[in-house]
């Protein structure tokens, strides 16, 4: 069932995915030209603000155009739709990581004129992506699926104000980040736990909503 | 009785919907019903009168003047309701009245409030959050509150329940209590017209197929039901359309008064409803009544 729903989203919403993917392409170009060291991290950080928003863009377009009813009238359960959104974010993020590696590998091989071993992301970078996924997708999603546009405004609004206040007050997060990076396995488990919790909350809020 | 509106061989090609040589007069003090299939050009006709669409051919005389010259000024004397009205989605129902009022010298705030209450419209709700029926009622309240002499309503009854339609017909009848005013409204629900319309105009594929006083129209046509023998007799050249079903033949014939003598025995003659007239006219004409 998930496959048909994914195919449906791609066929109906490819239009609204073009713009984000264009931005993704520009991000790739800029990073590839960037200097050696920060290439991969730069790319992931720069575009992964966008990737978690893709499922939100699709779902919001579906409800804005009033076609959410058509989706829910199909022989699919509310749970299937929530699974779709969470699968999509993993699908898009996975796609991004592969694309990033490929871009960097191609650039290096071209520069070195012979194929070189693929440089795989370091553990910290993976965890970095995980943290972003939690903050930028898993936190606002239940609010969005439960209360629609209002929930989204609250979700992203609270995140932005958090980021702005941190930036304005320049609080020092490094100590906290180093501590968590020291215990990667525990952190990975925490991130996975938060992701599942967000899925369960979305399921609960979305199932009881009227359309 | 002067005609408030006269269309003289009106023609317009507007994408898929076009009109060809339409002549129509709306006399003061009457209600005229406009019926026709989807895409027959009803909305196009109303929009032409209002100057929303530029005219290709023919002439429109509004209150005796050429509509093209005094467009804006003449629109002060017209009340218009669009097919599915959008108005200002963000504004509340009472704000809509405030915003439209300055455009009409004879706007009457009390009438607007009275009609909104009669239609049970929530005055504090935004227009976009109203149901389709209530949006139509709000648009009607706006069109009826500046003593418009001519009302042009494009399917005002769609989305309204029978009770609300009866109230709308009451309002229209109240409008023409003043003999100087008239109503032209298009609808798919012919039972409404059957009750109150004085004149009826039937549009098919952009042409005015039938027009005239409703009673005369209904009395001059007849539905004849019978077997295949209907097609042998002299009835054939009176027939303007019909249908063959497993139960037998139904033919729409002209000149109901003098049909009795032409009927083969066992055939039934009935008065058509407006819906029958629209449904059967030109239907299966080639196969059934080819002369």
């Amino acid at each position: 069932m998930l496959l048909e729903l994914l195919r449906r989203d791609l066929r109906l919403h490819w239009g609204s995915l073009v713009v984000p993917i264009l931005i993704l392409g520009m991000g790739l170009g800029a990073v590839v030209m960037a200097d050696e060291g920060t290439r991969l991290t730069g790319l992931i950080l720069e575009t992964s603000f966008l990737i978690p928003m893709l499922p939100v863009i699709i779902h919001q377009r579906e409800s804005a155009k009033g076609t959410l009813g058509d989706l829910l009238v199909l022989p699919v359960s509310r749970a299937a739709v929530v699974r779709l959104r969470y699968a999509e974010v993993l699908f898009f993020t996975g796609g991004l990581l592969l694309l990033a590696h490929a871009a960097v590998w191609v650039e290096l091989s071209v520069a070195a004129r012979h194929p070189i071993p693929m440089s795989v992301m370091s553990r910290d970078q993976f965890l970095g992506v995980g943290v972003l996924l939690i903050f930028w997708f898993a936190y606002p999603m239940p609010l969005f699926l439960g209360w629609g546009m209002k929930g989204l405004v609250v979700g992203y609004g609270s995140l932005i104000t958090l980021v702005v206040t941190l930036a304005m007050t320049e609080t020092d997060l490094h100590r906290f980040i180093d501590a968590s990076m020291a215990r990667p396995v525990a952190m990975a488990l925490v991130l996975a736990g938060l992701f599942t919790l967000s899925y369960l909350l979305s399921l609960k809020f979305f199932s009881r909503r009227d359309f | 009785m002067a005609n408030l509106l006269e269309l003289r061989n009106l023609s317009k090609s507007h994408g898929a919907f076009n009109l060809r040589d339409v002549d129509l007069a709306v006399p003061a003090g009457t209600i005229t019903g406009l019926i026709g299939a989807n895409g027959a050009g009803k909305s196009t006709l109303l929009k032409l009168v209002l100057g929303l669409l530029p005219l290709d051919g023919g002439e429109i005389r509004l209150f005796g003047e050429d509509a093209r010259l005094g467009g804006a000024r003449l629109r002060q004397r017209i009340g218009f309701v669009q097919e599915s009205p959008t108005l200002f989605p963000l504004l509340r129902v009472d704000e809509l009245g405030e915003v439209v009022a300055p455009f009409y010298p004879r706007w009457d705030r009390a009438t607007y409030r009275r009609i909104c209450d009669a239609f049970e419209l929530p005055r504090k709700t935004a227009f976009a959050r109203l149901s389709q029926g209530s949006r139509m009622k709000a648009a009607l309240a706006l069109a009826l509150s500046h003593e418009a002499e001519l009302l042009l309503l494009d399917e005002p009854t769609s989305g309204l329940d029978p009770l609300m339609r009866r109230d709308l017909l009451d309002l229209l009848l109240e409008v023409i209590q003043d003999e100087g005013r008239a109503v032209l409204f298009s609808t798919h629900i012919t039972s409404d017209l059957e009750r109150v319309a004085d004149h009826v105009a039937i549009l098919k594929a952009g042409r005015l197929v039938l027009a005239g006083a409703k009673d005369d129209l209904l009395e001059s046509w007849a539905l004849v039901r019978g077997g295949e023998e209907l097609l042998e007799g002299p009835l054939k050249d009176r027939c303007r359309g019909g249908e063959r079903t497993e139960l037998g033949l139904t033919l729409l014939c002209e000149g109901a008064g003098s049909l009795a003598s032409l009927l083969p025995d066992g055939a039934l003659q009935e008065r058509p409803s407006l819906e029958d007239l629209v449904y059967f006219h030109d239907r299966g004409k080639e196969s059934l009544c080819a002369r």
Partner: protein
Amino acid sequence: MRPLIRMAWATSRRLLLLMSPLLAFYLALMVVHQVTKRGTDIPAIAFTCMFMLIIVSTFQGLTFDVEGFMASLPVTRAQLVRTKYLLSFLGLLAGLALTLAVAGLAHALAPGRAAAPTPEELRSAVALALVDAFGLFAFLPFVHAFEPSRGILAFSLAAILALAASLAGWGLDGAADLFRFFQRVLAQPAPALGLIGGLLAFGLLSLSLSTWAYARRSF
């Protein structure tokens, strides 16, 4: 015309309310930024204020299918076009006024840290307003000739072509310098008047073009 102005005000009032927290938040950020960092980027403020206010004044007519209803009111198409131009222009002036207010406020809050806006900065703000006006006069005919969404598409295509042409014509730095060009011209009074006169003429041309096109529109 007066009823049209009142209608435009009533319809965009709620939109302004919706956008005012965003605008206020942004301006506060600007003032704080200026007081703490001493950098005066008046043009940046000006650009956003004007852009936002122009959007609001034309916004109401573009997004919702309101033009059909407006055309059915007892007003001529010319009046509708004039109202839209007037509102956009008011948006522009309001943006300029807001900019100067922000600069003034910053100076008042911390006279030591944020210097009073120098004539040079004022000139750049006005120059930016003129660039916005130029863009506006080029944009509005598209939105009147075509249905809003198609109009915006057509305008952006035309804008990209114009940019490409100017890039090819004056090279990389020359093209994007309409703003600096205006700044230079505004320096002396005579050319400044000439520029403003030229812009006004362009505005009138744009207005008559829009009026001509809007009369032919079908709703």
